[in-house]
């Protein structure tokens, strides 16, 4: 799928082992950016596949986040639940250009928004 890259601010705007939600929806869904100790940045649709909890408010360990509602553990790299729980939230591409975070917004959703 084709993406267009949107700038959303400096890397430091996300705390290490923390996450922040975006102020706009992508394909009608809230999105959050997560930052790990290893300086990894990940973007997920901010909705736990279990009961729609806000993953961005969870505790981040390694490259996983624990949903604050019922403790499902979700992988930040691909959005899947760590077994034996089964489920997945969508992950979106992120990259850093000159210290600025950019998120890849799928073209379809842009057109839909336009």
């Amino acid at each position, binding site marked *: 799928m084709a993406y267009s890259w*949107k*700038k*959303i*601010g400096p890397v430091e*705007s996300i*705390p*290490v*082992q*923390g996450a*922040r*939600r*975006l*102020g*706009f929806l992508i394909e009608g869904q809230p999105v959050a*950016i997560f930052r790990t*100790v290893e300086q990894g940045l990940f973007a997920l649709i901010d909705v736990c596949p*279990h*009961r729609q909890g*806000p993953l961005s*408010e*969870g*505790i*981040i*360990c*390694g490259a996983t986040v*624990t949903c*604050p*509602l019922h*403790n499902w*553990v979700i992988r930040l790299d691909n959005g899947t639940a760590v*077994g*034996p729980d089964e489920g997945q939230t969508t992950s979106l591409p992120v990259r850093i250009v000159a210290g*600025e975070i950019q998120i890849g917004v799928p073209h379809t959703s842009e057109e839909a928004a336009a």
Partner: protein
Amino acid sequence: MNMMTDNRQRLVVIGNGMAGMRTIEELLNHEAGRRYHITVFGAEPHVNYNRIMLSSVLAGDKSLDEIVINPLEWYEDNGIRLFTGDPVTAIDRQAKTVQAASGLRVRYDQLLIATGSRPLAPPIAGLGLPGVCAFRDIADVNKMLEAARLHRRAVVIGGGLLGLEAAWGLKQRGMSVALVHLMPTLMERQLDAAAGQLLQRDLDRRGIAFFTNGQTEEILGTERAEGVQLTDGRSIPADLVVLAIGIRPNIDLARAAGLDVSRGICVFDDMRTSDPDIFAVGECTEHRGEIFGLVAPLWDQAKVCAAHLAGDETAVFTSQTLSTRLKITGVDVFSAGALMAADETDDEITLRDDGQGLYKKIILRDGRLVGVVLYGDATDGQWYLQLMRDKADVSLLRDRLVFGRALAEGGANKPAGPDFSAMPGETQICGCNGVSKDTIVAAIKDKKFTSLSDVRAHTKASASCGQCTSLVEGLLAFTAGVDAKAGKKTLCDCTEAGHDEIRQAILAQTLKTMESIRAAFGWKKPEGCHKCRPALNYYLLCAWPGEYHDDSRSRFVNERLHANIQKDGTYSVVPRMWGGVTTPSELRAIASVAEKFSIPTVKLTGGQRIDLLGVKKEDLPAVWADLNSAGMVSGHAYGKALRTVKTCVGSEWCRFGTQDSTGLGIKLEKLAWGSWTPHKVKLAVSGCPRNCAEATIKDLGVICVEAGYDLVVGGNGGVEVRVADPLARVATEEEVLEYAGAFLQLYREEAHYLERTAPWIVRVGLAYVKQRIVEDAIGRGALYGRFLHSQKYVQADPWAERARDPEAREFAPLLMEA
């Protein structure tokens, strides 16, 4: 002669429920089972789900997703055609076809009828009114949940297993619940009168109103259900009426097809009906005069039926002695076999302890156990059941048998719990999922499992209602030598070390960071997990006040944002109200904040404060700033911390008050606020023994008397209500503060993270707490000193701090840049 191009046999299943699909699962386990082309018709519009767990869905313990047994992919992966929401309307045995409601007609070579049962409906008026439902399927549960949201009063008709679980679930959902039962005692088919009465007493205490000997005359109402009228003149108002008086096998289809039916569809030992090409399993069947309502025999039927479909003609279904358990949290009931002596040659042996709500009865016939009823402690249920199934001679155990396994088998040297080496392989360990000892042992051996969670994830044993967890743990220990119980006491899966061990090492080895603790104990995950990080953060805060820097990233969201996350993702904010006392200007400030930020709900809490519910995350800093500027600080209503000090008005106003309870409450709150504790802590001060502040169900309560102050500790008003234990009587307010501070510090230093004072005191014993706080005056002074020292660093308003903190920007969402 098979003329199809697809030379597989056509198997059609009528019914997409538990028994039918379990048969297919069993069939697919056979090599020969793959020779079928399978078509399934289900009347409900869902995939296959665990009907037994509907009561857990109703009670809010599980979601609908969690009770799905086989998702759509399972049908696809196994090449099964599934038609949901399409009941079969006729079977043509000559043409060997079934006709569905949609018009679809499908040929079969072999047919499996698994149509289940339907709820019995009494012949009374009003059954068709909106607000009346049964408790059988997902649609019923959805109706009940909707009623619980919109209405207040429910009546359940039927005091059997299902009715009681429905009543408890609705109670959990906040409805006021009455239960009408035709017989004098509850669950009379599974429990004798004594156990039924104990059950009624316990549920009555939990707030369910019982109408026994109650025959329903009609359901009242015109537009919707308004109440239930009993024949003896009693009338009960209701917005929801749930019928749970029993089930009746669904046999209409089989009867119309000319199969032999009686109460159920008659099946032989091979699960064939009177037509050898038609099988039947589940609650629709009748085998040797017996019909079925519990899950265990259905699993056996499924296994036998699948074997025959796969060409194994030797499998035989025999009905075993069945046992019953009730799925209500904290109510332990077990019964199997006879409920009472059949004649004078049978012997009943009874043990009854009304104080503890304990009741055990066993029934002996010719030296063998033929019945057991357990109430209050059902630990030994499976052991008794196996003795019955084995027809074991128990004459030698007779005088000890009723006391349970540990005593009966005598020996201090013999470990309590089942003897797994003597247990037959086919013994069912998990009734919900029909998992046998052999299956679990094989999984543990083949896959080299060492943890309960692995065994549970892969065999599903103990994954449904969880009552067999201790048995699965035992099997794990027996098979792999892993002590799952000891494993459970570790801090989390990252480490083998327990809470106490880690806390001692923090002090002994002066470990001052999470990294150093994880290094010292060889943590499995370098960053820990969501369980150990909050615990270690607390232990370090407690051990090194003023030195350790709180790690907000290891805090649960509520403690990180200083507000309680709600189910819709908004937050609730509770400002502190010292001793429950407020002023007009504080109330004005709260009112202004609520209006300014359009806060939808303003509610009084049980701890004498005001809760602002529905605050958006990005508004939190501004809400706090406004409350701060009116002199209010965080109430820590979100934290494992000191919550409230509830007071009555005391001697200042009350004609019964003996001391200034309000003033003392404020002093206590000023002393203790801001402290982090292993779990939440609630205090109260009552001005006289009438105890209007409910001090006896608080972690620490003070009851004022003329001679001074009675201190009580370890009370709890939650699900497991516990009355506080008396600690001491002291003479002065200063002593109250010292004892309270010392008690809180002892709890802070020695309880496990997430352990309330009540279970902590149960674990260490009241005598120990008294010895540390009352008898050892020097030790008490030292504890109090450490508490005061620790308080120096935490009594800063977290709201004001968070609003100044650079991380405060986190509350705002990230915006797209141009």
